[in-house]
């Protein structure tokens, strides 16, 4: 099985691409959060404006450094701006 990360999308991000979950292959040389965001922008150009204002989490923890490497099996989550209340 190809090593991959699970991508979960909420709100606008989910609506733009019409899916709440994706599986994304991790290349041999590894994959940083920044590289994954860039790859998502390339694959889904309409998602780019949302990604630019989103927060990102890995395994339920906010990422402060998008240079962090993602490991196969990780869950990467896209949080567009919040709208509670």
């Amino acid at each position: 099985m190809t090593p991959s990360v699970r991508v979960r999308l909420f709100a606008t991000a989910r609506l733009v691409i019409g899916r709440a979950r994706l599986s994304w292959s991790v290349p041999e040389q590894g994959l940083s959060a920044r590289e994954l965001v860039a790859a998502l922008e390339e694959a889904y150009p309409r998602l780019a404006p949302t990604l630019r204002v989103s927060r990102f989490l890995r395994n339920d923890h906010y990422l402060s450094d998008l240079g962090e490497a993602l490991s196969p099996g990780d869950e990467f989550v896209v949080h567009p701006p919040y709208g509670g209340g």
Partner: protein
Amino acid sequence: MVVRLTRRPLTVAAAERWLTVGPGGGVVVFAGRVRPDRRGASKVVALDYEVDRVPALVQLRAIERTARQRFRARGLLLWHRLGRVRAGELAVVVGASCTHRAEAFEAARYLIDELKTTVPIWKEERGSPARQPPRRRARPGGQSVG
């Protein structure tokens, strides 16, 4: 429960009961309702709320901890509805019980402001079907014209 994410209706009465058990002299409850705003010919009839539950609960508890220290709160609550919330229903209730009113007002303001900007909850509007403009009667054998 201080922090609650629920599909069940929220009431101010329940919040007041929760906050008046403790010794605080100033109790402030803020409730946010779904407004039946107009969107052109359509009207908002409900909001659908979704949450990323684990980070949302972590964040709500962090807000609670900070408020407890900053405002010396004796009691706090942060409650939010999930799923479909109809116009007129409460979507969010926050409250603070403090020794004096000034801290209670400030704490409640802090709770709702932080909740709206730092907790992963999103809403999507559900509208009534837009009313169609009345159809003009078509002329026999041709299109209706203005």
